């Protein structure tokens, strides 16, 4: 019996250590510290809901308030190194690839802030 319990313990411990060693947590770099539009906990859980509602308000009714606007997210969160929210350590993509959630906003939307966009360049 004791031997069985010891074996179980070994297996469990190995399992835990494996689970922790499997994937590195994403590096979330906040380069422009300050208050986001909601508390961090709320943003982590619900940012997609805010974006979805704002998307319909903007598209259908022409309401372009900066709060919850995707362009405003990009303006603030784009990396100063790459100029983008995409890339391995990009603010959006870093977390999304860790969570295994497909991120297709940026197939159409600009991942770079306005001053780095094609229009701003000569």
């Amino acid at each position, binding site marked *: 019996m004791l031997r069985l319990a010891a074996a179980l313990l070994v297996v469990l411990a190995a399992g835990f250590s494996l689970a922790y060693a499997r994937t590195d947590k994403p590096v979330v770099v906040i380069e422009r510290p300050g208050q986001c539009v909601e508390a961090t906990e709320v943003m982590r859980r619900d940012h997609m809901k805010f974006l979805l509602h704002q998307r319909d308000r903007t598209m259908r009714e*022409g309401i372009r308030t900066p709060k919850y606007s995707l362009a405003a997210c990009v303006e603030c969160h784009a990396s100063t190194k790459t100029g983008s929210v995409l890339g391995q350590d990009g603010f959006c993509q870093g977390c999304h690839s860790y969570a295994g959630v497909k991120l297709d906003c940026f197939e159409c939307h*600009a991942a770079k802030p306005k001053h780095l966009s094609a229009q701003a360049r000569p």
Partner: protein
Amino acid sequence: MSDNSRRGFLGTAAAALAGIAIAPGIRLIELAGARAPEEPASGKVRWGMLIDTAKCATGCTDCVTACNKENGLHDTGQPRTDAQWIRKIDLKDLRSGRQHSAPVMCQHCAEPPCVDVCPTGASFKRADGIVLVDKHTCIGCRYCVMACPYKARSFVHENLTDQLPAVPRGKGTVEGCTLCVHKIDRGDGTTACADACKAAGHEAIVFGDLNDPQSEVSRRLREIPSRHLRGDLRLNTGVRYAGV
């Protein structure tokens, strides 16, 4: 009060009255153009254009170039399928030989066929009369491309990069002239093509609120004869043409 000072007072009073009379007109235009960012587009406004083909120069493509720049449309090396929001057409009367040219884009119909045929509700008309594609719900079936009598819709065939923040575009969706909706929502009260035409000195494109009798476009529509393209379809287009 001497006669002189009374005259002076009357003059000032008349000037003040004139100021009041002018001020409401200007305010009306301002209100129509600039909407608060949190205020939804209103049905009181109907955005539209008058294109005076007599002033449109054959060979000039400034409106097309300006549209491409404003909306980030690039040449993808596939000219037959590249998106085209506005195009110049050349017209020739075979009997008289009279030639003229005009830009054609989405006519922003009051009764848009593209909206009727859309199976997902992606093609829609905004309250202020602008016909748009909600690319979040567009499935790329291209029914609207077929339904539009003006060939105003384009399908995006290629992967795109470097889109502008104000104009999201992507492969697999249909798009067309938005009447520079991002500029309207910003309160610019003008479109890239109208600006370019004015800058080129032609002023063939006049943009404005068709519902506002004080607006430049309404005034011009009252003054010169104009028509809807394919008026027989009774689509009540927002873009009107003079001289065709």
